[in-house]
């Protein structure tokens, strides 16, 4: 091997170490007794599950895992179903105001959310949606990004396929969900991954509209546990909650990493 190649591998391995080590340390620290944390570097010192026991007794973390799953799943379903419907209409049918609507959708993507954040909170108060899942799900059921993605992929589907389905007596909804969906699975996966991830990782909006601990999403609960006094400044206990927050994503990512990378890169390329 040439010396430059060896240097290249050293740099790459060093970089990988930099990206993986913090997560490794976090998992290890969550399993280490509080008194030994200061000496923890690479090798495990003493393994204990006490931090997890304390954490489970202090916050309803499993409940928040369920909450996050419900919220992210509903938002994703909404975005995929409604996004397909709107994207299909924009791509394949002619109606008055179609171009205007498409222009508005593109325009809303350039609108910083700082403008709508406070009035949206007031709306939630007026609807009495504060401290309900409606506040987390309803505003997240539509996404301009998803509509644009679906419009693009539907535009590439030949009209013959749709006409043939119409001759067979399919209604528009059946055409979208039974005839066209099987042809656009990569786009559905991309939209689903991006929507699910952004819903799962969002903290700002839940912090604003959810105050009841039983209804909090997981990142929100962990955030408040980290900054509040309830962990009694016990680092290992806080990190145990961080591990549980990271674990579902780490596992899913390890299995589907190619899909994750492709989806998120394609959203970047379009944005």
């Amino acid at each position, binding site marked *: 091997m040439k010396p430059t*190649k060896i240097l*290249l*591998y050293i*740099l*790459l391995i060093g*970089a*990988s170490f930099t*990206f*993986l080590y*913090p*997560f490794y*340390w976090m998992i290890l620290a969550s399993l280490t007794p509080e008194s030994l944390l*200061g000496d923890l570097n690479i090798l495990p010192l003493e393994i204990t599950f006490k931090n997890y026991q304390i954490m489970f007794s202090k916050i309803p973390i499993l409940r928040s895992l369920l909450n996050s799953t419900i919220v992210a799943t509903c938002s994703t379903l*909404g975005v995929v179903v*409604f996004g397909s*419907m*709107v994207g*299909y*209409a924009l791509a394949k*049918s*002619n*109606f008055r105001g179609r171009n205007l609507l498409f222009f508005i959708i593109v325009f*809303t993507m350039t*609108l*910083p959310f*700082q*403008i*709508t*954040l*406070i*009035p*949206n*909170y*007031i*709306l939630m*108060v007026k609807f009495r949606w504060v401290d309900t899942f409606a506040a987390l799900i309803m*505003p997240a059921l*539509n996404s301009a990004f998803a509509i644009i993605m679906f419009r693009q992929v539907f535009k590439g589907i030949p009209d013959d396929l749709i006409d043939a389905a119409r001759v067979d007596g399919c209604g*528009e909804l059946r055409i979208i969900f039974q005839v066209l969906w099987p042809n656009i699975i990569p786009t559905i996966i991309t939209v689903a991954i991006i929507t699910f991830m952004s819903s799962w*990782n969002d*903290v*700002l909006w839940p912090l*604003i509209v959810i105050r009841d601990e039983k209804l909090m999403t997981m*990142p929100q609960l*962990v*955030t408040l546990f*980290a*900054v509040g006094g309830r962990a009694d400044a016990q680092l290992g206990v806080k*990190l145990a909650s*961080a591990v549980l927050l*990271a674990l579902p*994503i*780490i596992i899913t*990512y390890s299995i589907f*990493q190619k899909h*994750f*990378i492709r989806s*998120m*890169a394609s959203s*970047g390329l379009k944005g």
Partner: protein
Amino acid sequence: MLSYFLVSPYLVHLLLFISFPVIFSVVLTFHKWNIISEMQFVGVDNYIRIFHDRLFWKALLNTVTFLLIHIPLQILIALLLAYFLDQKIFLKGFFRATFFMPVVISGVVVTMVWQQLYGLDSGLINKLLVGIGLGKVPWLTDKNVAMISIAIMATWKNVGLYVILFLVGLQSVPRRYYEAADVEGANQWQKFRFITLPAINPTIFMVTILSTIGGFNLFIEPYIMTGGGPLNSTLSAMLYIYKHAFEYYHMGYSATLGIFFAFIIMMVVVVQKYTIEKDD
């Protein structure tokens, strides 16, 4: 008719969660309101108040400081790592997947871990620095360092995404250009400067705009790590707006701050886009 049925979910969304809030936001900027009592018309007081609000300008300056460190650092490291990955190497998929991992993991987790890595005495980074004979760095406790620390962490978290984008850019360069340059006797730097860089210019611009928009939204990192301290040195504009709205319930003033801040973001992005198009 059917088409209107198909687009109706979005129309409801547009009216309820975008159009109404935008209009109501403008109305709010002329009022004083804490949600509970009556709205009180105050004219342009909220706008005037922004110009006297030194803490807001500090928060804005902090956010810009963050961007000025974060964006160049991110482009440089992403480009370097993408360049490494573009070589003929084993385990390319593994390296790519590890670089990308922090991108998918919640910022909450990343911030909680880095808060420990940055610890003054027990933090791993300082232990390492002392180990190789250097001094401790007050990562989160010095007002001149804390924002740099947050920018480094944000770079570590996001860089994987930009590595992938740069990699796509690098792979779009036809190999025969490099072969032709080899024939001409060009060195590595010349090949990079005159073939690679022009080809990935669009990617650099895209990365700049994406991370500008993302960087202006800086919130959860200072919220967890420093609470905006020390001495408000990591108070971001978003964190400041959040505090006004949801800790002090200044709805009118925070809506004004929101609109003003959004206006600044759009201006910066427009200027960036304009500069880019002029360059091309």
